[in-house]
């Protein structure tokens, strides 16, 4: 996920920190699960699935959040909270639903047709779909092609276009909405994408991303010549294709959505769009907002509640609390610079870690569980990757750490006394907000036990990513407060950016370990080209194992996200985005 969204991971889970230990969580996609583990029952949590008999049309859905929005232009949007608005106001070609992790046609009229070589993807769109006022005209395939041109215009600053859409002729640094030669529109309802590599299945998943929403061809030209694009500055002037339009917007403060009169429920076929109006106030103090939500009948809180409120919610208002899998945390070990350019030293470092301490630092097992590999529970392929147990490597076997195993690998690395005596020192950089400092100390303790000389540098989260861990030339040895949420529920989205050498870029690099292992790269590429899901997940499981074998990161936790809602509002959760779906949620 893009930087801002990455920053959300720690924020969200910090917000989830709760002093409840000796408990467990379900790996179910819904908080309405009825599991229990380790003495803590998850029974009785909020029902966050659609419930047509309990939900009704009309009324105003009230939202609240501590964080505000970044970009409500679908071409630029790449932030969990932005997605809530964009998926209610726009219509990507495909979508995931609260009950399905499979891409379901939305603006498209059927599944994408992928050629046998995986290099051509053909999408047919529905006839009669219209843009909102004042555009008021039918959406055509040219508008879809135009959306892709916008995506590759650097002025829109899209975060994923080049990664997920390897389209022939796609520019790397255009500053206009330039037509792309690899996209053709043989008629008004057909778009054909020609790809540079056999990437059809993966691209088909990525066609769920918001930037694939049709944009009125030609209408954005002037706005997109500015940097940043002015289409994003005042989102009320956009052309909407979703059930709602943005009526008013104050950056970081509030947004009001009203019904789009040109949207057709029957043509959409997926989104019920219960509320007549959605009013969202942001910028609240997280503690106050969470308490307001729990004490209200009609509020949905878009970001996670802080520790104290989460504890209260679990103990006294469990039916207003939902917990769903969020993503993964790990400590990246930079494999390109000493001392961790040595595989055995990395394995020793992992073995010496008390990984259960990371979980405690984040609040105990209600907010996740200790991980053993990098395809996390909500991502398809988790089972093929060994589930909770993982692949059985001895250096990740004991969550509390195993100094005997660590010693074994120190000896293999050439340190017979199990203590590092080399000259390289280790720089640990992490976020200066909780639980960053604690996590850095946990890493430090493990490394110091093996004789490494360590230095901790605590910086703001954004700085950590843009100037240290994500800046290749900074050569940071360990980044222990890194986390990842997949862009869509597919193992490619979970593994490619954080672990493929092909994804390494000089700035904003999200492969924090700088892992460029040919075997890993090859397996991820191979998996991306496979359409058969069973085979696909098997190959990604092998890639996951190769990453664990490379010991490029210390697996910390598979995290959960907690959300709270008012007593009478019916919040429906999008498991893939780990947040509410405004088109499915309904007021009291």
């Amino acid at each position, binding site marked *: 996920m893009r930087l801002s969204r990455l920053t959300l991971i720690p924020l969200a889970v910090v917000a989830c920190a709760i002093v409840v230990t000796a408990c467990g969580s379900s790996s179910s996609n819904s908080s309405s699960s009825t599991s229990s583990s380790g003495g803590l029952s998850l029974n009785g949590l909020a029902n966050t699935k659609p419930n047509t008999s309990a939900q009704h049309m009309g009324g105003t859905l009230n939202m609240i959040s501590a964080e505000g929005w970044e970009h409500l232009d679908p071409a630029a949007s790449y932030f969990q909270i932005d997605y809530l608005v964009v998926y209610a106001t726009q219509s990507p070609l495909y979508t995931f639903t609260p009950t399905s992790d499979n891409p379901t046609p939305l603006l498209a009229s059927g599944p994408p047709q992928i050629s046998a070589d995986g290099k051509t993807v053909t999408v047919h769109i529905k006839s009669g779909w219209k843009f909102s006022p004042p555009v008021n005209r039918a959406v055509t395939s040219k508008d879809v092609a135009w959306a892709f041109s916008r995506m590759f215009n650097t002025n829109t600053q899209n975060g994923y276009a080049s990664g997920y859409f390897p389209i022939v002729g796609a520019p790397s640094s255009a500053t206009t909405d330039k037509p792309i030669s690899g996209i053709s529109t043989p008629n008004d309802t057909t778009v054909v994408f020609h790809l540079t590599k056999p990437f059809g299945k993966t691209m088909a998943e990525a066609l769920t991303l918001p930037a694939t929403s049709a944009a009125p061809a030609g209408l954005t030209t002037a706005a997109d010549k500015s940097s940043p694009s002015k289409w994003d500055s005042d989102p009320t002037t956009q052309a909407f294709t979703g059930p709602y339009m943005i009526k008013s917007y104050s950056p970081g403060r509030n947004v009001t959505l009203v019904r789009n009169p040109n949207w057709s429920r029957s043509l959409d076929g997926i989104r019920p769009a219960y509320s007549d109006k959605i009013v969202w106030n942001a*910028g609240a103090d997280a503690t106050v907002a969470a308490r*307001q939500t729990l004490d209200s009948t009609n509020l949905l809180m878009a970001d996670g509640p802080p520790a104290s409120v989460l504890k209260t919610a679990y103990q006294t208002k469990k039916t207003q609390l939902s917990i769903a899998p969020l993503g993964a945390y790990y400590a990246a070990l930079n494999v390109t610079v000493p001392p961790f350019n040595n595989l055995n030293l990395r394995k020793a470092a992992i073995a010496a870690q008390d990984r259960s301490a990371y979980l405690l630092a984040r609040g105990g097992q209600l907010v996740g569980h200790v991980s053993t590999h990098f395809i996390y529970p909500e991502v398809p392929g988790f089972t093929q990757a060994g589930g909770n147990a993982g692949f059985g490597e001895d250096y990740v076997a004991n969550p509390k750490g195993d100094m005997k195993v660590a010693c074994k690998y120190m000896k293999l690395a050439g340190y017979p006394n199990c203590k590092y005596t080399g000259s390289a020192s280790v720089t640990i950089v992490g976020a200066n907000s909780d639980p960053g400092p604690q996590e850095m100390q946990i890493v430090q303790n493990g490394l110091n036990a093996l004789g490494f000389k360590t230095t901790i540098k605590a910086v703001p989260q954004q700085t950590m*990513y*843009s100037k240290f861990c994500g800046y290749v030339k900074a050569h940071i040895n360990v980044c222990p407060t890194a986390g990842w949420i997949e862009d869509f529920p597919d193992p490619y989205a979970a593994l490619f950016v954080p672990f493929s050498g092909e994804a390494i870029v000089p700035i904003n690099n999200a492969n924090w370990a700088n892992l460029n292992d040919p075997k890993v790269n090859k397996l991820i590429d191979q998996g991306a080209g496979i359409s058969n899901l069973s085979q696909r997940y098997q190959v990604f499981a092998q890639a996951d194992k190769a990453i664990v074998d490379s010991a490029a990161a210390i697996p910390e936790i598979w995290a959960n996200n907690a959300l709270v809602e008012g007593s009478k509002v019916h919040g429906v959760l999008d498991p893939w985005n780990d947040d509410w779906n405004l088109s499915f949620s309904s007021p009291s």
Partner: protein
Amino acid sequence: MTRYIIRRLLWVIVLLVVVSAVTFVIFYTLPSADPAALRAGRSPNPALIASIRHNLGLDKPIYVQYWRYVKGVILHFNFGYSYQFSQPVRTMIFQRLPATISLTVGAMVVWLLVGLPVGIISAVRSRSLLDRFTMGASLLAISAPVYWLGLVGLYLFANDIGKVHIFDGSGTYTGLTTNPGRWFGSLLLPWLVLAASFAAFYARLLRSNLIETMSEDYIRTARAKGLRERRVILRHGVRSAITPIVTVLGLDIGILMGGAILTETVFNIPGVGRLAYEGIINADLPVIQGTVLFGAFFIVIANLVVDIGYAFIDPRIRYT
């Protein structure tokens, strides 16, 4: 007096230039986030980063960037574009300024209405039970962090999450022109919370000044002339003792106009302080720069007003 004001106004310009330069240097010297990287999104290719850096002018030497900024501010009153929100900073600040002014002015009225009478009564009845009680209470109010006090106020008295439903809760702020009644209601608790420590501080400050003043010879003379005690205290004692209060008041108003970050955050008031905070956590230099400049502007202007005000309050002061 006119020459004095002109001279001071010129110094205001110099000061603002220095403040903006220091903010610029701090931003570039300390390890803040790279704005181009923040805008570029995940895994950008180097061409995209270069393009953004160029478009934002970040590829120019720092002095060129600074010169462009100063030129924009002076010639066009343009404070730049927020990296984070893709909005003109000037618009964002002006949108939020009414909330900050409402909060500051209202709180000031409260703390003056409470702090000054308490200070005078405590000074006049020094060492009495009332004095001990009010000074003890003021110590408590000074010691209570505004963030904590705000949360306690909400948990006790807010209409939504409070135990006793008296005041409007967090996030209810309404503009004065939209609905004056709701504006007043939504700000009542924030005013009380923000004013608490200020009122306490002013009361203590005025008390100590007034006690000292009341022992001066001219006070004894005034009493000997047969003036009523009330007149002696208010016309002769307070007028002299209040000068330091006016100094502090000017600074406090200036600082708060730059944003009462904690109060605005707890009560979800869309003010300049909250904007500054968001700018800082997002490494949004234009927002940081704009809010700092505004804050500095208010502080120096408030100081100037205070200095001019001395001439009217204190007959011993004359400007040349």
